[in-house]
C-alpha cells in the first residue's frame, strides 16, 4: 500500500504531511510515559529489533489469488506490543527507509505514514481494545483473547486504511473515487487475511515466550 511520488495532488499531500507531523510531535511527548514505566536501556534495543522484524515482513510479499500479492503493514501489531504512539514513530521510520529504496515516494511519505502508521497503529490499537472488552466477557484463555483481538483489529485496520487510500486516490483524480475505494477494499479483504494471521501469530508467540515484552499488557487489560 505504498503510494509512489507524483500520484497525489499537492493539497492532499500537504494536508496529510501536516497531520502526520502533528501526530509525530504528540507521539514524541506521549512516549515519555513509556520511558517512565520501562527502563530505557531494556526497551530501546528491543524497539530496534521489533523495527527489524517489521521491515523484514514488509520486505517480502505473500501471494494473493488473481495475480496480486500482499505484505504485512504491522501498524496494529507494533501498537499492541509497544503502544500506539511508539507504533506511529516506528512505522514512520520504516517508511522513510523504504522510500530510500524507492518503495513508496518521499512526497507521499505523509500519506503512507497516515495510512499505515496512524490508521494501522492508532485506530487499529483502539479497535483491538474494543474487541478485547468484548472478549473479556468470555471465558476464553487470555493469550487467545489478545491473539484474536490483534488479528481481527489488524484485519479491520488494514481494510480501513485501504479505503482511506482509495479516497486519497479519488481526490488526486488518479482513479474515480467510487472505483478506487471499492477496488482497494476488494483486494485488501484478501490481503488483510495475511496481515491478521502474521500479526496474531507474532503476538501469540511473544505472549507464550516472553509476555513481559508486551508493554501494553496492563493497558489492554490482560495482566
Amino acid at each position, binding site marked *: *500500500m*505504498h503510494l*509512489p*511520488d*507524483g*500520484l497525489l495532488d499537492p493539497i492532499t499531500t500537504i494536508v496529510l504531511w501536516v497531520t502526520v507531523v502533528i501526530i509525530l510531535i504528540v507521539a514524541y511527548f506521549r*512516549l*515519555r510515559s513509556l*520511558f*517512565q514505566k520501562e527502563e*530505557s*536501556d*531494556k*526497551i*530501546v*534495543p*528491543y*524497539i*530496534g*529489533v*521489533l*523495527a*527489524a*522484524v*517489521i*521491515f*523484514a515482513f514488509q*520486505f*517480502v*510479499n*505473500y*501471494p*494473493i489469488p488473481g*495475480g*496480486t*500479492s*500482499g*505484505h504485512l503493514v504491522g501498524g496494529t501489531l507494533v501498537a499492541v506490543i509497544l503502544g500506539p504512539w511508539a507504533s506511529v*514513530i516506528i512505522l514512520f*521510520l520504516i517508511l*522513510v*527507509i523504504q*522510500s*530510500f*529504496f*524507492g518503495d513508496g*515516494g*518521499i*512526497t507521499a511519505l505523509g500519506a503512507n505514514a497516515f495510512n499505515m502508521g496512524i490508521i494501522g497503529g492508532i485506530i487499529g490499537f483502539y479497535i483491538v481494545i474494543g474487541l478485547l472488552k468484548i472478549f473479556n466477557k468470555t471465558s476464553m484463555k487470555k493469550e487467545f483473547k489478545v491473539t484474536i483481538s490483534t488479528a481481527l483489529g489488524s484485519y479491520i485496520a488494514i481494510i480501513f486504511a*485501504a479505503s482511506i*487510500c*482509495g479516497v486519497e*486516490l479519488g481526490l488526486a483524480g*488518479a*482513479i474515480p473515487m467510487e472505483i478506487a475505494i471499492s*477496488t*482497494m477494499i476488494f*483486494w*485488501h479483504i484478501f*490481503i488483510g487475511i495475511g496481515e491478521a494471521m502474521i500479526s496474531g501469530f507474532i503476538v501469540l508467540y511473544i505472549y507464550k515466550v516472553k509476555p513481559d515484552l508486551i508493554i501494553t499488557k496492563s493497558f489492554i487489560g490482560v495482566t
Partner: protein
Amino acid sequence: MMNFKLKNRRILTSILVVLVILLVMIAIGYPLGILSENPDGLERVLIENNGESWLESLSSVWTPFLSWIENNYIAAIIGVVMSVVFTFAIFKFISYRKEKRDNITGAN
C-alpha cells in the same frame, strides 16, 4: 559489565535471527511460491485502471539513493540494519531527552 555484554549479545543475536529468517524466506520463498513478486493491492488497482506504463511514468522529485540495489539479499541486509540503527537512535534520543528533562525538573 557482564550483564551489559549479555544483554547486547541477546539483542545482536535477535537481529541476526531476523536477518537469517528474512534471507531464508527470500531464498526459498519465491521458488516455492510462498512469496510472490506480483503487484500488491494498490499497484494492482492502479495498473487495472490506468495501465502499467502510466504507473511507471509517474514523476518523482528525487531519485531514491538506494534504488540502484537490485540484489534482494543486499537490500534486505541494508534495510534491516538501517531499521535497527534509525529506531535505536531516535528512541535513545527520546529517552535521553526525557532523562535530561527529569533531572532538570527533579522528577522521579
